[in-house]
């Protein structure tokens, strides 16, 4: 135990005081140095984001500023399990050495995130090595191997500063010395502060590096994605192109095979043909032969391609016309055509269709080609089916009717349409016919063919217009006005082929002429003039011409079906109106929609549904009258004029008094001298 201190002298006291003051001054100087050092290091560190530079600045400061000759910075792995020497000063080839977190002074400081200052490391190690040796000698279990530590082999003092930012272990800063107790509390404090700066600097730099790396990776990923996308797009494009080309190929092949098939048979029977279910059958058909007069002589001086080009133009025009009348070009032979009407299914209009097609062709040839054409037409029963060797079979017909048609054609004068005599009965109601000179026909005998000159004008059709009627006497010019209007306003519509579908030939023209004539007659009558002045004559005429323009979209078989029930007729009327409205829209005649729709309503309700516009009544009476009186073959005998007029007034919508327009129409159309009195529904007196 120490002896109690003696009372010090004043001098001693002064000396002691001076010592204390000096020591305090020293400490103070060191402190302010330290503050300056710390500030310097931290400002340098925070001025860069370059990790290597931060490590260099930090370690250079260790030696140059703080006087630590051996220093190192170890960086923690991302999982904070290992520490690797990233930079060091005062060693040879230390960088890259690795220790586990928790191993040694640096490792334990890192693991515990606690500054660790030891001044007896070598001694303690030596002591523990002894303990280890004794433990091993005692055979007390297996011990872990002695760890290889980076740094001085015989460091007695170590100061380890964990570098931690926001609870993340960044690494550890270590300084060491071979001297015992080489570092004091002040060193510890100083390095702790500097360590914070270093940790923050490293963390920022690493985050920066990570950001750069992240962005680089993102760029790489983006580039890869872009590449993949491009590859994908290219792949998709290539595949699409492939598929599309395959589709085109299939479509071309389909078109090709269909066009090849259409060369063999009418398109309607192709499905049956493909299934091998097309059986030969008897059909009532019309056969048409055409031949160009002296084509061989005409083409003698021409280049072959010119010949072919002209003929192909002709065939194309002829095919178009024949198709419009539902005919089928069976074959061509040189400049000749064999066409069939009424195949592959029954048709009631095949004979008139053939004649109308022939007339149209003659008109067309006459105006477009410099040659004459013969046409021979004959109707009769033939057998139709696939004919020829299996690889070259064609849809063809066999029968005497074919031969006769061919003979008739041979005898036809150029420009004419020759029809075998038996066609006369069918054609007479509609066509102006001449009789050709009787001639010998091989295998038939003498034959007087008919020459179809054209459609019979309404005025010449005694079944429609009585020559003694007011209409015939005063209003025939209206017929020509209608023809002019038809050509000028509706040249785009082929009325004849439209009417041919249900043999309502010249129906539209007749309705237009009757309605306009009736209007003019009514207007002339002062007593009722006011109502008729409001009717637009041109619109009335147009509506009459177009009132069934939707017919082209309806199958002729449906139009010509005589056995339709009420529902069937209603649905046909609806479809007809719908098709007609579509056609009106197509040709820009929407202004007629109301008028024509009202006409259909009038006819569907037999005029019972309230008041109708004057124009509707005019159209209705003209339409019904022509339907009754127009020539028909397959619809039964037409009404005689007087009977039809009486019927008109007998029908509910024509009752006298309710619709004076019907009585007026009777006045217009009745034969002179005939009186048509309709007293009651069932009681019409006809004289």
């Amino acid at each position: 135990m120490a002896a109690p201190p003696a009372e010090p002298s004043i001098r001693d006291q002064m000396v002691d005081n001076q010592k204390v003051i000096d020591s305090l001054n020293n400490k103070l100087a060191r402190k302010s140095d330290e503050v300056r050092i710390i500030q310097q290091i931290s400002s340098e560190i925070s001025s860069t984001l370059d990790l290597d530079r931060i490590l260099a600045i930090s370690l250079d400061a260790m030696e140059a500023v703080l006087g630590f000759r051996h220093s190192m910075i170890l960086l923690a792995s991302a999982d904070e399990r290992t520490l690797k020497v990233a930079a060091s000063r005062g060693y040879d080839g230390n960088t890259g050495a690795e220790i586990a977190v928790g191993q040694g002074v640096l490792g334990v400081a890192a693991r515990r995130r606690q500054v660790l200052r030891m001044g007896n490391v070598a001694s303690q190690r030596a002591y523990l090595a002894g303990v280890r040796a004794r433990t091993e000698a005692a055979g007390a279990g297996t011990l872990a191997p002695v760890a290889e530590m980076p740094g001085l082999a015989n460091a007695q003092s170590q100061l380890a500063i964990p570098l931690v930012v926001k609870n993340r272990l960044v690494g550890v800063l270590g300084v060491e010395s071979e001297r015992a107790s080489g570092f004091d509390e002040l060193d510890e404090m100083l390095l702790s502060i500097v360590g914070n700066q270093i940790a923050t600097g490293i963390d920022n730099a690493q985050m920066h590096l990570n950001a750069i790396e992240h962005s680089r990776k993102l760029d790489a990923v983006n580039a890869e994605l872009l590449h993949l996308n491009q590859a994908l797009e290219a792949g998709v494009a290539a595949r699409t192109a492939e598929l599309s080309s395959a589709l085109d190929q299939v479509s071309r092949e389909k078109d090709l095979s269909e066009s090849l098939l259409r060369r063999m048979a009418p398109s309607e029977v192709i499905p049956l043909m493909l299934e091998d279910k097309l059986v030969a059958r008897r059909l009532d058909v019309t056969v048409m032969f055409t031949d160009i007069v002296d084509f061989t002589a005409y083409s003698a001086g021409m280049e072959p391609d010119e010949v072919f080009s002209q003929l192909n133009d002709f065939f194309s025009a002829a095919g178009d016309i024949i198709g419009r009348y539902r005919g089928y070009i069976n074959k061509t032979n040189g400049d000749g055509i064999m066409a069939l009407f009424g195949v592959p299914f029954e048709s009631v209009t095949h004979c008139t269709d053939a004649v109308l097609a022939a007339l149209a062709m003659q008109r067309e040839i006459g105006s477009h080609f410099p040659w004459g054409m013969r046409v021979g037409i004959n109707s009769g029963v033939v057998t139709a089916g696939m004919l020829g060797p299996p690889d070259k079979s064609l849809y063809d017909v066999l029968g005497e009717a074919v031969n006769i048609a061919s003979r008739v054609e041979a005898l036809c004068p150029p420009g004419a349409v020759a029809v075998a005599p038996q066609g006369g009965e069918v054609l007479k109601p509609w066509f102006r016919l001449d009789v050709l000179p009787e001639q010998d026909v091989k295998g038939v005998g003498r034959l007087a063919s008919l020459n179809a000159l054209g459609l019979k004008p309404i005025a010449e059709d005694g079944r429609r217009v009585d020559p003694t009627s007011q209409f015939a006497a005063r209003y025939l010019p209206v017929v020509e006005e209608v023809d002019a209007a038809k050509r000028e306003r509706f040249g785009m519509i082929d009325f004849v082929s439209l009417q041919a579908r249900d043999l309502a030939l010249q129906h539209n023209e007749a309705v237009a002429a009757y309605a306009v004539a009736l209007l003019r007659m009514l207007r002339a009558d002062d007593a009722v003039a006011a109502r008729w002045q409001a009717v637009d004559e041109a619109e009335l005429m147009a509506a009459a011409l177009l009132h069934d323009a939707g017919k082209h979209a309806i199958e002729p078989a449906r139009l010509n079906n005589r056995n339709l029930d009420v529902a069937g007729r209603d649905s046909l009327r609806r479809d007809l109106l719908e098709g007609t409205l579509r056609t009106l829209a197509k040709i820009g005649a929407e202004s007629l929609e109301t008028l024509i729709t009202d006409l259909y309503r009038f006819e569907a309700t037999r005029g019972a549904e309230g008041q109708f516009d004057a124009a509707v009544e005019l159209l209705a009476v003209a339409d019904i009258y022509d339907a009754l009186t127009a020539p028909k073959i397959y619809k039964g005998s037409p009404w005689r004029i007087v009977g039809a007029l009486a019927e008109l007034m007998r029908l509910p919508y024509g009752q006298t008094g309710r619709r004076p327009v019907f009585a007026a129409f009777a006045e217009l159309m009745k034969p002179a001298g005939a009186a048509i009195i309709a007293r009651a529904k069932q009681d019409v007196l006809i004289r």
Partner: protein
Amino acid sequence: MLPDEIKPAMLGIVPSTIVTCSLAGVPNVTEISQVWYVDEDHVALSHQFFNKTHRNVRENPFAAVIVRDGRTFQEWYLEIQYDHSEESGPLFDKMDIELEAIASMTGMSGVFKLRAADVYRVLSVRKSKSRG
């Protein structure tokens, strides 16, 4: 009681010697790695194993230690008396972390583990006459 002068001898640079005695009066001398300076009146010894020293001071709290200054090899004789054990707190942590640091270097992390910091009251301190 402990002078500042003694601190270098308590840095664990040179092993210290401790003498304990069982209740039956059987003495035991052993070397220990470090006697820790706690404050002017207290030192601490690390308790890692149930060895004879540990057993003796639990029976008979009086012990004598010799600590040596690593630089001068000046010896100090201390009479101490076992006071209490600390299994947590700043003293324990300080001793624990240093022990772990060294043990982990020598592959003895699991073996060398601080169980407690045994705190002794210093009864007397005496500087040896001779050095070494």
